[in-house]
């Protein structure tokens, strides 16, 4: 059950991202996706494996559902959120997008607890919410840094 649910949500996020009108280039989106993925992989490893604050199911299909959420759904939702709206959006509007996006991920986290994909030991869903907000903010900071220091705007090609 959990596998089918998360497979569908994973597929849906991929399709939504594919269909979305993007604010940023393919390279910028790739860099953002990879950064969010790296942060999320390390975070989940620390919380689940090292500190045991949350545990994942030892059923193979449920474990795959957990992997889909960790490696595909969360980074892609952050990407969809960052690409949402116009580049000139106000700070307040951007924060609203981030809060809604974090709430969506939080909802998916609750579903994973509900479907016994993950089990909470010593953790509060509020910590998850704070982490998801920070993940979005960090994503925006990384993107800003990348655009300022890495993107050569006057260049046509990507190789020399």
């Amino acid at each position, binding site marked *: 059950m959990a596998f089918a649910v998360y497979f569908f949500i994973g597929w849906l996020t991929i399709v939504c991202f594919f269909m979305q009108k993007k604010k940023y280039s393919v390279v910028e989106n790739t860099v953002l996706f990879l950064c969010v993925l*790296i942060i999320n*992989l390390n975070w989940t490893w620390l919380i689940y494996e090292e500190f045991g604050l949350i545990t994942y199911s030892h059923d193979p299909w449920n474990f795959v559902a957990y992997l889909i959420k960790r490696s595909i759904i969360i980074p892609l939702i952050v990407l969809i959120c960052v690409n949402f709206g116009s580049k000139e959006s106000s700070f307040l509007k951007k924060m609203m997008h981030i809060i809604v996006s974090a709430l969506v991920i939080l909802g998916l986290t609750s579903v994973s607890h509900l479907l016994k994909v993950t089990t909470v030991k010593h953790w509060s869903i509020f910590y998850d919410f704070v982490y998801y907000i920070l993940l979005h903010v960090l994503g925006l900071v990384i993107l800003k840094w990348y655009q300022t220091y890495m993107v050569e705007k006057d260049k046509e090609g990507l190789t020399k």
Partner: protein
Amino acid sequence: MILVGKFDINEISLLIMTVAAYLFVLFTPKKLSKEITCMSLLWGIATGLVYDFTIGGGLLDLYRENDTNHYELFDLFYYALYGPFGYAFMYFYEVLKIRKKTFAFYVGGWAIFGVIAQWLFTILHIITYQNNYSLPFSFPIFLLTQTITGLFYHYVTTVYPSERLMQRKRIQQD
């Protein structure tokens, strides 16, 4: 979570290899733009992490990095070492002027190189196989990974810039 296990051959060789790999990134003639260089390093690190945290840990736990199954400081050096591999793949793709006809040989060559590198890591005790995993299983994994990397790089450097150029021309015409 521990800081450092036993400081011996795996830690020393990781230090040397990581420094050498990043010196390679810094001092090779620049063939890639800054944005692609950054992306290639991140691509390498993220790919390595995905495998290590998926098949190298969790339910499968097919191999161990360094001295323990837990997170340690030198694991970070190991993850950082993946970055220059990503860079080298894209760098030599340009240096050797890889096109569709040579793509399969290039990717196949990298998959063999990956297996050799992993064999070296097992000799140096950077990686220790467990739960019935053995070196030949790495070959299909490398082949798949390098193929995806190659196809993605091909898209980013050929299809995407011409799309961008066409888009700009359309805007100018409008």
